[in-house]
């Protein structure tokens, strides 16, 4: 069997679709969008952390942070590769980002104002990312799932490092502890919003779940994450800025405060704190690199021509 029937069976068996398999156009489109958005998020996500590399307060932390931001570039690469297996080349995807036609995770439109943000981003942002991504390791599209496995492993390492930064600050001077608490206060709500709008306002989720791309609903993932950090924050000796946070024994669910979905929509619409800055920086890097990429292409062409001439000469 082939075509739709094969695809349906693979999905029904919770098995994997591979690049050469037939797949519905909408499935392909959805995946290209999701995987490339994820890739773009890794790339734009380098910026808030790169902002502190040159100012990291110890050489050890500087090294860890450099390695982390570099890992993100690596994640971007895997994900663009996964997206390319679906037929859209990386430069097309990159152009969509530069043109503002493709989205990236809106969390990266928040500024990294202090060193403690390196902790909060690691702990909360990477933490939410992992909660989102661990189920994606079983995504029905093979290359995506496999990329996710590798990424999740590194992300959980990053999350531990973020936690460690906050722990060190929390056990440090009063000013350091204040810095840590302030960062957690600023990143808590944006991190919760990373799971997307509430289930009753998330129209695409159902289809993604039917295709075995998404495995849990936004709200399920969110409340699971909130439960996790509610425990971890105690170890940190800090608090979460959520007076309503509690575990509801009856439903077995975590209850958290109402989130400001208007803010979420504003940031997605480009009205966040750093949207313009992030895009400007990305475009600038791309433009400044044009002559370099052109040179690399021209050189490769010359070399290929030379090799071809040699082969003819040798023949």
């Amino acid at each position: 069997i082939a075509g739709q029937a094969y695809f349906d069976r693979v999905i029904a068996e919770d098995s994997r679709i591979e690049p050469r398999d037939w797949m519905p156009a909408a499935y392909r489109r959805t995946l290209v969008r999701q995987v490339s958005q994820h890739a773009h998020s890794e790339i734009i996500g380098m910026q808030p952390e790169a902002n502190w590399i040159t100012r990291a307060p110890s050489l050890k932390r500087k090294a860890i942070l450099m390695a982390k931001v570099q890992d993100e570039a690596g994640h971007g690469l895997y994900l663009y590769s996964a997206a390319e297996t679906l037929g859209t080349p990386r430069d097309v995807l990159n152009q969509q980002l530069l043109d503002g036609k493709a989205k990236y995770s809106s969390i990266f439109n928040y500024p990294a104002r202090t060193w403690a943000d390196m902790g909060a981003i690691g702990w909360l942002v990477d933490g939410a990312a992992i909660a989102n991504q661990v189920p994606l390791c079983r995504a029905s599209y093979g290359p995506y799932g496999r990329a996710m496995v590798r990424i999740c492993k590194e992300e959980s390492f990053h999350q531990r490092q973020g936690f460690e930064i906050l722990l060190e600050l929390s056990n440090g001077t009063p000013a350091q502890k204040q810095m840590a608490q302030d960062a957690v206060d600023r990143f808590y709500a944006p991190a919760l919003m990373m799971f997307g709008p509430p289930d009753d306002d998330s129209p695409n989720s159902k289809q993604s779940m039917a295709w075995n791309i998404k495995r849990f609903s936004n709200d399920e993932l969110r409340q699971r994450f909130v439960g996790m950090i509610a425990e971890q924050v105690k170890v940190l000796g800090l608090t979460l800025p959520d007076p309503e946070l509690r575990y509801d024994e009856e439903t077995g669910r975590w209850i958290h405060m109402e989130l400001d979905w208007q803010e979420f929509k504003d940031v997605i619409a480009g009205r966040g704190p750093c949207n313009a800055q992030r895009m400007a920086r990305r475009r600038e890097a791309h433009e400044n690199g044009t002559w370099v990429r052109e040179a690399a292409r021209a050189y490769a062409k010359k070399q290929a021509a030379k090799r071809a001439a040699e082969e003819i000469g040798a023949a």
Partner: protein
Amino acid sequence: TEDVAQYALRLGDDALILAQRLSHWISRGPELEEDIALGNIALDTLGHARSFLTYAGHAWDRTEDDLAYWREEEEFRCAWMVEQPNGDFGVTIARQLVMSVYQYLLYSKLVDSTDATLAAIAAKALKEVDYHRDHAIQWTVRLGDGTEESHDRMQAALELVWPYVDELFDDDALIDAVGDAGVRPSSLRETFDAHLAEVLAEATLDLPDVPRARGGGRRGEHTEHLGYILAEMQVLARKHPGATW
């Protein structure tokens, strides 16, 4: 000994300031692969800095961070080359070409140091610097023999960094004092020149013919750039004296 510590400090400061400069490229490279490559090189170089500074600090009971964050400009011992601004990608590659070949030759000899720690640091660093050298050479050739624009930019980049080459190979009293624990910079020059001539020829680039800058980094006399580099690098640490991170 004090001399060996002072010598390690030089090597460490060269690596530290170079890493600081390079790290600025992360998230700004001409393509994603270069964000990764320059990030790797910066990270390796920072690692070398940490080893050398940690070792130097033993002599004065100071940590790597004491030395990185709590010295003043005139206490640094880096050469002027590493203080040079990143410029465009070509300038960074030109600086990398010089520094990676220089460090490769230096560490190749330092593995035979009579000081076991320096020898060990050099041995580890050597493998990494070999990759840095390869990276810089490949880009020099690609840019030199790429487009007309890239050729001109790369030639201009070489002219920009060349005044700072000679200082790297200056001997001084400390070099005499460390003797076989260190490496005599002037002894590396011939190989450096030969190697560079080869690379530039392949890259269809001309060896710059520009006067040397006086230099003085080894004596704590720095370019006007270093103050800005340190202001940024040290700002956070200095706001929290005594804190750990």
